[in-house]
């Protein structure tokens, strides 16, 4: 048994990462009106600075940084832990949320005549709530604490999905909520079984005490089923397209780019950090097979959508599918697992930026054309080249063409599947890339014709620029140096135990 964990140097940064957005929510609520927007945007540079310092500290220390709340070490207390992937995800969320916020200034400003508008007030508070909930998910080291964070994330995401107040958005949000409730209650049941078996829910202690008991298999199945429903993995994806496609553009960008990654991150924590000692009973193959189903099914449905936002939402389902290939390709102790792990995480990042960019671009398009029907895009690329460049660059990453983060991700996953002899996943990657090329072509082809197009309003330059800069980040990720992958490996348990017989 290792000695009890205590706070490491700079562990307090982790508390700050959670405290800043939480304080922002309270202050916005107390001060009201326009202040909510000011606080949400004003605290963003600070949040980014905190996230970057966490990243720098983890990189410098070469191991996870820890904060034991109130000085109590687990199992008595709750620990906050940040390893390589926590730090990278914190930075990702600190970049995408302010980008969505800046974009939303036009649509969610409090009208000049009013002191406070319900729509604006809800939006800016919930945006900060998402940032707080994600921060807890990324740094928490306790499965029950993570349950609460997961619920906070759902409760923050839901109002964003129906902030417009139209009937169909309420219906979509209700479906979203029912799926999410199913997910959280099954996660909680699994946590109860794990606590009953081992007397702790601390991730590091659980990993130490893990033994293959029947209760563990049941808990793993229950928690995974719950998390899959929240991540919208095929066949539990039904709630996602209406909820994401009907939300306003900046909300869709955050929901599709970040919120679904929250529950995926927890799935990673569960399988790679809590349960690596569980003997393979085919769970990783099941997750990989569901992911493959999502890639094919989501892409084919994306090909058939008449509206751009629905197409992008179905493409999210397909891209989430790739994430789950990390389970068959990144688990265990083999030569190829590093590739599988890195590829899966690169896909998380590339998809977050590419999808946020595409939803924002779709928002600009909708404002300018007054609709988002793909069949009526003829000639639009001439009128708004920057928006279609964004859609093209985002599409590049979705397809997995170089140079892009999506290419790096799919290349690493492909290498892992070839090296491990698991050819079937390579086939999925190739078919998925072809189908993605099909649906991206469907967006761009009509727009590039030279027909005249009537714009209802000139495109909003600032909005276009924000979307394009996110798409450029997705492209730049393709040039990630080797040291970036070393950072992702900090605190990865498979490496820590690799030396053991």
């Amino acid at each position, binding site marked *: 048994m290792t000695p009890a964990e205590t706070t490491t140097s700079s562990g307090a940064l982790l508390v700050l990462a959670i405290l800043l957005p939480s304080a922002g929510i309270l202050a916005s609520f107390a001060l009201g009106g326009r202040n909510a927007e000011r606080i949400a945007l004003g605290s963003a540079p600070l949040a980014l600075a905190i996230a970057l310092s966490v990243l720098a500290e983890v990189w410098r220390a070469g191991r996870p940084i820890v904060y034991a709340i109130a000085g109590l070490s687990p199992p008595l207390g709750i620990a906050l832990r940040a390893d390589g992937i926590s730090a990278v995800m914190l930075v990702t969320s600190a970049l995408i949320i302010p980008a969505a916020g800046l974009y939303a200034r036009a649509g969610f400003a409090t009208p000049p005549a009013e002191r406070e508008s319900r729509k604006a007030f809800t939006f800016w508070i919930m945006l900060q709530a998402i940032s707080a909930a994600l921060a807890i998910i990324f740094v928490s080291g306790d499965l*029950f604490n993570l349950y609460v964070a997961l619920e906070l994330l759902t409760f923050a995401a839901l109002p964003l999905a*129906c902030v417009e*107040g139209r*009937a169909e958005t309420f*219906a979509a949000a*209700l479906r979203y*909520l029912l799926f999410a409730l199913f997910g959280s209650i099954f996660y909680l*049941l699994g946590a*109860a079984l794990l606590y*009953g078996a081992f007397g702790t829910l601390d991730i590091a202690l659980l990993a130490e005490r893990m033994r293959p008991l029947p209760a563990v298999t049941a808990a793993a199945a229950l928690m995974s089923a719950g998390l899959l429903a929240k991540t919208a993995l095929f066949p539990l994806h039904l709630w996602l397209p209406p909820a994401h496609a009907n939300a306003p553009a900046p909300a869709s960008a955050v929901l599709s780019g970040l919120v679904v990654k929250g529950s995926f991150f927890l799935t990673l924590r569960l399988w790679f950090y809590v349960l690596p000692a569980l003997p393979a009973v085919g769970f990783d193959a099941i997750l990989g097979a569901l992911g493959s189903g999502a890639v094919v099914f989501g892409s084919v449905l994306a090909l058939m959508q008449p509206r751009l936002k629905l197409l992008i939402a179905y493409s999210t389902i397909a891209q989430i599918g790739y994430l789950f290939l990390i389970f068959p390709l990144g688990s265990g102790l083999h030569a190829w697992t590093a590739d599988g792990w890195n590829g899966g995480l690169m896909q998380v990042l590339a998809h977050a930026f590419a999808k946020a960019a595409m939803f924002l671009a779709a928002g600009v398009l909708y404002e300018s054309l007054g609709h988002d029907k793909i069949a009526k895009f003829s000639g639009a690329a001439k009128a708004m080249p920057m928006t279609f460049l964004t859609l093209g660059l985002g599409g590049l990453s979705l397809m997995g063409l170089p140079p892009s983060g999506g290419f790096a991700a799919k290349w690493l996953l492909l290498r892992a599947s070839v090296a491990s002899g698991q050819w079937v996943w390579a086939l999925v990657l190739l078919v998925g890339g072809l189908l993605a090329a099909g649906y991206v072509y469907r967006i761009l082809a009509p727009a590039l014709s030279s027909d005249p197009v009537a714009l209802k309003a000139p495109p909003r330059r600032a909005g276009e620029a924000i979307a394009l800069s996110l798409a450029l980040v997705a492209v730049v990720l393709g040039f990630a140096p080797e040291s970036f992958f070393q950072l992702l490996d900090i605190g990865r348990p498979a490496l820590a135990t690799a030396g053991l017989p």
Partner: protein
Amino acid sequence: MSPPIIAGFVGAGLVGLGLYALIVNPEPLKKLLAFNLIGSGVFLVFGIVARRGAVGVFPFDPVPQAMVITGIVVAFAASALAVALMLRLAEESGRVTLDPDAWTKPDDGAEGP
């Protein structure tokens, strides 16, 4: 059969019944009630875990009990949110249905009302 085993079966039964109702009932309000039934089953399981974790002077392990309290608060908040959503949905549209086809317009719903 000892009381914890009986309580365990009751908890499992509640979860099973709730899950069945959550899946087969098309009405949102009944789905919400089914979710609460699952919740009761899960909280019962936590109670058994607390009972079995008794050590020394404590007749119960206090940690699972603290978790149940949190779980109940979360489930209550979630239920309130779901009811509020249903009321708003009924207010806006006069019906409460989750059928996605009910919201699709002839022109694919590209424009909001």
